């Protein structure tokens, strides 16, 4: 197993890339996504793997120099073997036909492999594909991955459309295809990655937004989780419990307790499953209905909080849940105040909220950080790994 080093991605694909698998990182032009390959290379190297790095577009020295100012910096050593632009130009100059060029590449790789087993190959394939054809270029490495168990990582600048990527995937038998593109729905300042195809686990194709941090590392995002539910369910408490920084708009309501009149906002103390998360809390009262709808717009997921001791609040809850369902947002149900007496049974909750048996209920105390984070964790699993249940 070789980790990609991007925790959220590793979590999604079951821990990392199994030995001998073939991975394609397809980049859209202009999108800062080279970190995916850099990160996998850094991880393989740190894991003690012997890595062959094919960089026909630059020199090994320039490649390592570019990485040095990033978290992916590595010292050149005997476990990092390069075939770079100098090797490419030498082979090109000495080969009269593409067939001869192919044979020369094979000979070069064979020579390297005879000096010791290669555990992972990192191929920047565009120049090679351009020179000897995509099929021949990839065949040079696919066989080695099948016979010798080397894990293959390929970065490809896709100058065509997604149909081209589908054709490439179909003809080349990659085990994991990750497309990296610009924009995310109508949130244009995020780029996104999407697992389009994976052979060793089941994963729905889903765009995952990410940002590049100042230090050049990848930060996958869940940009908007909305915490909603009826009044006094514990939504604000939930956000405050899990957040490092939060802002609330509570005012004393007619019940005498504080109630949210606009929205709550929070960043969790830690990222969850490798994602940076932003939480937005809604008010619960009926006359704030239009605000709730606005806050739900473009939500990535919803944590629907109910008070597990008060059936009378559930009809209002059903209205809000109806809006969530109409908008097609994935949601989990958090049944709060589990530490109090008079708990409503799951069967009653399911009946009153019209929840199917497949929708899990998470009982928690919103004052307990671990339990609240467990609910966020469940929602992230739903968003990234599962087919939505409702």
């Amino acid at each position, binding site marked *: 197993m070789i980790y990609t080093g991007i925790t959220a991605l590793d979590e999604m694909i079951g821990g990392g890339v199994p030995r001998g698998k073939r991975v394609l990182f397809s980049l859209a032009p202009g*999108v800062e996504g080279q970190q995916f390959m850099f990160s996998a290379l850094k991880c393989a190297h740190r894991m003690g793997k012997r890595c062959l790095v094919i960089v026909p577009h630059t020199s090994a020295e*320039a490649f390592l120099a570019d990485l040095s100012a990033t978290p992916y910096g590595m010292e050149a050593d005997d476990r990092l073997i390069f075939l770079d632009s100098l090797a490419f130009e030498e082979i090109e100059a000495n080969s009269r036909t593409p067939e001869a060029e192919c044979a020369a590449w094979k000979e070069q790789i064979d020579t390297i492999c005879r000096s010791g087993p290669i555990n992972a190959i990192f191929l920047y394939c*565009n120049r090679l594909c351009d020179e000897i054809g995509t099929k021949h270029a990839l065949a040079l490495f696919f066989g080695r991955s099948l016979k010798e168990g080397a894990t293959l990582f390929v970065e490809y600048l896709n100058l065509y459309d997604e149909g081209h990527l589908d054709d490439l995937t179909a003809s080349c038998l990659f085990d994991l295809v990750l497309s990296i593109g610009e924009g995310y729905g109508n949130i244009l300042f995020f780029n996104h990655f999407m697992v389009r195809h994976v052979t060793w686990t089941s994963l729905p194709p889903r765009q995952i937004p990410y940002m590049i941090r100042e230090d050049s590392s990848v930060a996958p995002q869940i940009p908007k989780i909305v915490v909603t539910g009826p009044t006094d369910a514990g939504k604000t408490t939930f956000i405050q419990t899990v957040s490092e920084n939060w802002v609330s708009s509570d005012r004393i309501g007619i019940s005498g307790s504080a109630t949210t009149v606009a929205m709550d906002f929070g960043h969790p103390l830690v990222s969850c499953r490798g994602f940076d998360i932003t939480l937005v809390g809604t008010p619960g009262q009926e006359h704030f209905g239009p605000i709730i709808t606005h806050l739900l717009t473009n939500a990535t997921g919803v944590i629907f909080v109910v008070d597990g001791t008060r059936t009378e609040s559930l009809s209002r809850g059903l209205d809000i849940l109806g809006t969530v369902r109409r908008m097609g947002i994935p949601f989990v149900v958090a049944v709060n105040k589990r530490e109090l007496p008079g708990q409503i049974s799951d069967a009653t909750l399911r009946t009153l909220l019209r929840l199917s048996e497949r929708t899990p209920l998470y009982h928690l105390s919103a004052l307990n950080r671990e339990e609240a984070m467990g609910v966020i964790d469940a929602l992230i699993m739903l968003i990234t790994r599962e087919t939505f249940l409702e």
Partner: protein
Amino acid sequence: MDPFRTGIRKIDEKMGGILPGSNLLLLAPPFADAERLAMYLGQPGDSDYTVVISTDQDAQELVMAFGLPESERHRLWIIDCITKTLVPVIADEDQVKYVGSPVDLTGMGIKFTKILDGIQRAEAARNNLSGTPRVRVCIISLSSFLIYTKLEVIYRFFHILSARIRRMNGIGIYLLNPEGVDEKTISTLKQLMNGMIEVKEDAADPTVRILRCQMMSGECVPSVRYRFSGSDLVEEP
């Protein structure tokens, strides 16, 4: 949006300048001082910026060639595709980004995005929040790209880049030596453009060139005789 001024009187007066969103193929034979003309057309105006993607000259040479006063240097941004082949450890600067070689189209695209982002931030820091800054993009030169990479790939890459320039209401100037490529290459690359400037030598005077500007919309300036005096373009009668 106001057209971009070229600094060439006949073009600016007859056509009113070059419309935002235009991509111009600058066809010029060797030894025609075409780089200087590309830079002249790409000189940043009072309210716009210039991005040069260079495979022929390094960043230092370009800064010298543009000759902008210190107060205007913030308007010139460069993607240098050659220095890293000689100095592998050279690191990016705010206004100068380096890629491994002219074949590193992945790096070039990313650095172009970063430069546009940098220009936007620079404008915001100057409290100019009026919208997207106007950008002139000079490709010096397509001929060099075609030495290293196949036409189909170059066409696809610049198809995406030219569409981006169109969307952001900039102008693109793409230098190409027609004598170094075949007719098919020229006609393929013309598909990306909505205008063309052709440069020819004046048979009577080797210091004088003649340019013809033809836009796809039908506008045309058939003949401008000019020569360079230092960095100034002097129009001849």
